[in-house]
């Protein structure tokens, strides 16, 4: 009898949940947190577990083998090359991206006709699916039919008795140095738009009065750019760099489609190597060990750049 008296009407009970902010907040947030815990956090720890076991596609029991996988891959010259290449590709492409993005962003803060269309064209590489863009590059860098070959031949730069040698083909993807340069170029092509557009957003948000004042004081374009604008957009530039680095460092589509790591294994990167080991070779443990090499580097870069961004922001 008493219980009916205590229990409020149903409608009222519902309303109280709909109004209690921490409960409602928890209910609203729970699915997202659960999804991320189940399919990001747990797999992350499973990856660590894999890396210290002999798990494979055929034998799925987890037998602890200590650091054997790491020792095996560290003794593999192909892995060492993949690690070095991944780092080299990332660093060189980021330097180029930063330089080019500054130029693009500086130009796009000026007035000129056809800006909308130009921005659209410059953004295309980043807006389109990466694997489809790389298909285009596969043709562009083809050993026999590359349009660059035709251009170079017709400029008298390639062919018998010319600067670039007697053959009529550069064979971009078949020669060690050129293949590495090609991969770097495609990374620049792919990530330059994002860095540029982030910098553009930063530059346009700068207080106009500040620039006007500098102009009144007699400062010229480049002085204003390097002494006033760059320091102001530095935090945003760190963020652009962070995303661009993460996307480049962990990418596998470019190398997988463009070179498959070749010629020989001269353009191998960690992502593709982890795929070849873990999925095609079936050695999940070794593959996971390869993939785990990403983590400390990413963590260090993320912490460093976010810190730098914060610190510059406060100043």
């Amino acid at each position, binding site marked *: 009898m008493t219980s009916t008296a205590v229990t409020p009407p149903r409608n009222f009970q519902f309303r109280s949940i*709909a109004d209690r*902010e921490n409960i*409602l*907040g928890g209910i*609203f*947030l729970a*699915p*997202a*947190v659960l*999804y*991320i815990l189940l*399919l*990001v956090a747990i*797999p992350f720890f*499973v*990856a660590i577990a*894999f890396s210290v076991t002999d798990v494979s596609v055929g034998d799925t029991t987890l037998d602890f083998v200590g650091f054997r996988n790491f020792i095996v891959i560290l003794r593999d010259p192909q892995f060492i090359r993949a690690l070095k290449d991944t780092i080299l590709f990332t660093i060189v492409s980021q330097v180029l991206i930063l330089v*080019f993005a500054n*130029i*693009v962003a500086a130009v796009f803060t*000026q007035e*000129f006709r056809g800006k909308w269309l130009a921005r659209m*064209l410059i*953004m*295309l590489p980043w*807006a*389109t*699916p990466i*694997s*489809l*863009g790389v*298909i*285009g*590059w596969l*043709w*562009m860098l083809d050993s*026999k*039919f590359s*349009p660059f*070959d*035709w251009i170079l031949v017709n400029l008298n730069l390639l062919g018998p008795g010319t600067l670039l040698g007697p053959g009529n083909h550069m064979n971009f993807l078949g020669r060690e140095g050129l293949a590495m340069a090609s991969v770097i170029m495609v990374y620049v*092509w792919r990530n330059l*738009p994002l860095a540029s*557009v*982030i910098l553009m*957003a930063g530059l346009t948000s700068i207080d106009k009065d500040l620039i006007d004042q500098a102009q009144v004081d007699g400062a010229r374009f480049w002085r204003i750019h390097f002494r006033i604008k760059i320091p102001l957009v530095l*935090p945003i530039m*760190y*963020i652009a760099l962070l995303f661009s680095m993460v996307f480049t460092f*962990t*990418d*596998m*589509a470019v190398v*997988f489609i463009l070179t498959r790591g070749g010629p020989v294994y001269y353009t191998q990167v960690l992502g593709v190597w*982890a795929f070849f080991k873990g999925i095609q070779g079936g050695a999940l443990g070794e593959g*996971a060990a390869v*993939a785990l090499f990403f983590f400390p580097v*990413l963590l260090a870069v993320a912490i460093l750049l976010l810190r730098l*961004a914060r610190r510059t*922001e406060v100043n």
Partner: protein
Amino acid sequence: MTSLRHWLKQALIYLVVAFFCFFSAFPFLIMIINTFKDDKDLYRPQNNPFIYNFPPTLDHLKFLFESTNYMTFVKNSFFVGTLVVIITLVISIPAAYSLARLTGRWGERAGIGIFLVYLVPPTLLFLPLFRTVVFLGLNNSLWSLVVIYPTISIPFSTWLLMGFFKSIPKDLEEAAMVDGYSRLAAFFKVIMPLSVSGVIAVTVFTFTLTLHEFIYALTFISSSASKTISVGVPIELVRGDVFFWQSLLAAAVIVALPVGFVYNLFLDRLVEGLTMGAVKG
């Protein structure tokens, strides 16, 4: 003198813009041209790659649509994309509102935490997730992608929508609640109608993300009939060493350009989302 300097400056701007436009768009231009090139035109290195040395042909487009799995890939991509958008919206809209309004300081930290999840790369997770997918019996099924893709789209969408909800004045809900609405009702009747543009942006990003994704699609699915565009085109349209180049390039550019165009329209909002963490967080 000043007019000369002005003229030089304009010329320099156009030169730089033209260079970067060319760098970015050149592959797409060649892809479009090659789509209609005759075999004897394309496979002769002496031919000018920019013009049609022989009359253009539609044969390769016909081949693409009639004799390959291309339309299956397109359908698969739309299936996955649509379901992932629905899952992402259902989960990240409430989560974002919760972080923006209901959870206070604690929510702010959780928000940054969720954003950082966006930086955890698929390359790190694809091996354990492959095991998970096999365990769930979803390998070779499009459902594997439907289940896994929200792990990328939810963090970013939640972050973006959180910023969006924060920009709506609190007074609006408070006024509605004074009028007798519950917090829940105020969210649905006041906030949601104001958030349509944010929801559209998140929809576009999530859908394009499912079209862009490569590693998971490559790892989880091996049968041709279940492949999506991003993997089906580069893997299936190359038979052994035989490249059907015109069809291949057509397949890529037909999807790449429209996706690129739509994505571009929402780019500013994306940038806002990406930089929000650094500047205001």
